[in-house]
């Protein structure tokens, strides 16, 4: 019998650990990642020729970054690594991949999707003005390019990444105008009991706040962003503070984000069942405790399905690979205590719930956005147009609204407007957000060149 063909999409912490377990069992998985190098988002590598040490790049996570990078390096020669390769379609046991301008068709027995996450965004007036970036972008500029997104940066959003990136900017010597958190201060106290399951992370969070305070960075809780100002570039940001006063901040850049949104297109194309996750206020592929999806042969791990952070991604990767081996009828990998991994994941899940309480998704702010706010950046569709499709045109959910208005129909396929769009649509109809559904994924999951070369058999 030929060795089963297993594919791992994503070479972040989840994909790396999954590949490691598969290799240990004697398999030779194909590991596919769009990036030039392994590492994924959090442990993203800087380009060749850059000299900063891991401590400068990853701060407190330097040890983990080294470990994950080291684990991947140890796999070289024992996996088929496909960097700079886009998996653009997945169905019926076949993955379509674009690599170096050529189309490849990969048939597989099992596939582990470890595709990670991107920033979760909500629109505010002016968020397309140059100088406005996602929080993740602000961090990538720093990590991978040693640049700040501006001279005086305003950070806006909610979630741990908000404080982390602001603190990383301070540390790197950039000027941070302020940190604006839409979460009220009281929310964090309410979340403490849940978050106490991972005290080390609580301490890290407190240290970030302390670093910002010490640097004199104003931190506002419970704000409502009103607009980003500037025509051809950002000149400032206007917000309403917790006391209801309007304030204007001067700045030439805004980094904004509200935690993460799972990159789940491939799972959707594969036909996996999704369910609305109350905690992260988004639709996620459904998995069992180990990462088996509803579709035979398709497994999920990491932030593309759990949104529980990098450590959880590593554990999820191991569990998913173990499930693959088990389902292939191969002996269980040595040194992996599945029960213990599941328990750790459950603890991290409690913490994730705490984070959602501490840094809630501000649905109320989105519902109240002015009609002229651009919701869909790609197609330049406004909140007013979307609302009219909900009322006058009676669109009950996002796909119908998309058909009528083109919201989510552009290059990013709704990654940046889908969640907020559902919130706006549902609010206009007086329904909860989940009633607005989710935008169905379509291939290619990212733009595909018409000039792609096809192997002719």
């Amino acid at each position, binding site marked *: 019998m030929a060795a089963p063909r297993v594919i791992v999409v994503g070479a972040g912490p989840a994909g790396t650990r999954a590949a490691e377990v598969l290799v240990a069992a004697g398999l030779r998985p194909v590991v596919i990642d*769009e990036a030039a190098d392994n590492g994924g*988002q959090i442990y993203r590598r800087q380009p060749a020729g850059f000299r900063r040490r891991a401590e400068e790049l990853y701060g407190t996570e330097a040890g983990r970054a080294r470990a994950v990078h080291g684990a991947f390096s140890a796999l070289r020669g024992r996996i088929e690594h496909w960097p700079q390769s886009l998996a653009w379609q997945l169905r019926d046991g076949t993955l379509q991949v674009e690599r170096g301008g050529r189309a490849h068709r990969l048939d597989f027995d099992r596939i582990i999707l470890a595709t990670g996450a991107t920033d979760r965004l909500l629109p505010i007036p002016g968020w397309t003005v140059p100088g406005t970036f996602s929080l*993740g972008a602000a961090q990538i*500029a720093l990590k991978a390019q040693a*640049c700040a997104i501006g001279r*005086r940066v305003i950070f806006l959003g909610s979630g741990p990444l908000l404080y982390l990136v602001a603190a990383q900017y301070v540390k790197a010597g950039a000027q941070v105008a302020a940190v604006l958190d839409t979460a009220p201060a009281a929310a964090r106290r309410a979340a403490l009991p849940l978050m106490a399951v991972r005290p080390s992370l609580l301490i890290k969070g407190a240290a970030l706040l302390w670093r910002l305070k010490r640097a004199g960075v104003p931190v506002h809780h419970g704000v409502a962003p009103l607009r980003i100002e500037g025509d051809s570039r950002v000149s400032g940001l206007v917000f309403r503070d917790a006391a209801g006063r309007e304030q204007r901040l001067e*700045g030439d850049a805004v980094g904004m984000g509200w935690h993460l949104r799972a990159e789940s297109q491939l799972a959707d194309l594969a036909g996996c069942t999704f369910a609305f996750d109350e905690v992260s206020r988004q639709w996620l592929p459904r998995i069992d405790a180990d990462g088996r999806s509803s579709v035979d042969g398709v497994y999920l791990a990491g932030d593309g399905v759990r949104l529980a952070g990098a450590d959880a991604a590593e554990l999820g990767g191991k569990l998913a690979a173990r499930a693959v081996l088990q389902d292939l009828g191969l002996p269980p990998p040595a040194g992996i205590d599945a029960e213990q991994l599941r328990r750790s994941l459950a603890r991290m899940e409690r913490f994730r719930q705490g984070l959602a309480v501490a840094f809630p998704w501000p649905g109320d702010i989105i519902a109240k956005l002015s009609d002229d706010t651009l919701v869909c950046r790609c197609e*330049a569709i406004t909140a007013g147009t979307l609302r009219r499709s909900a009322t006058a045109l009676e669109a009950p959910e996002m796909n119908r609204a998309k058909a009528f208005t083109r919201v989510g129909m552009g290059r990013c396929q709704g990654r940046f407007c889908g969640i907020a769009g559902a919130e706006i649509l549902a609010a206009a109809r007086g329904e909860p957000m989940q009633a607005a559904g989710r935008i169905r994924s379509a291939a290619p999951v990212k733009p595909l060149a018409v000039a792609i070369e096809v192997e002719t058999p």
Partner: protein
Amino acid sequence: MMGGAGPLLQRLDELVRPSVTLAVDGQVVTALEGDTVLTAVLLHGAALRQSEFGDGPRAGFCLMGACQDCWVWTEQGTRLRACSTPVTAGLRIVTREVPWPRLG
């Protein structure tokens, strides 16, 4: 103070790298090896392209290949996703016109 011409991004570190020359809207721009096209252009100006729908300039958003807001044109009429393409010497980027359809 804020606003006006000039770069969007600010270099903080990693200044010691070989330089690479490219052209942006006909002007010669010096970047460093390892810069992305997005970095190179935004260290020089404040836009990568104009929105197709008349709502003004755009300069990328996510830097991780997800938002697709940073696709630029070369003078030769090819497309590059600026945030995920490293600069190479001799690149000629245009941020204002769209050289399409190119004939011949």
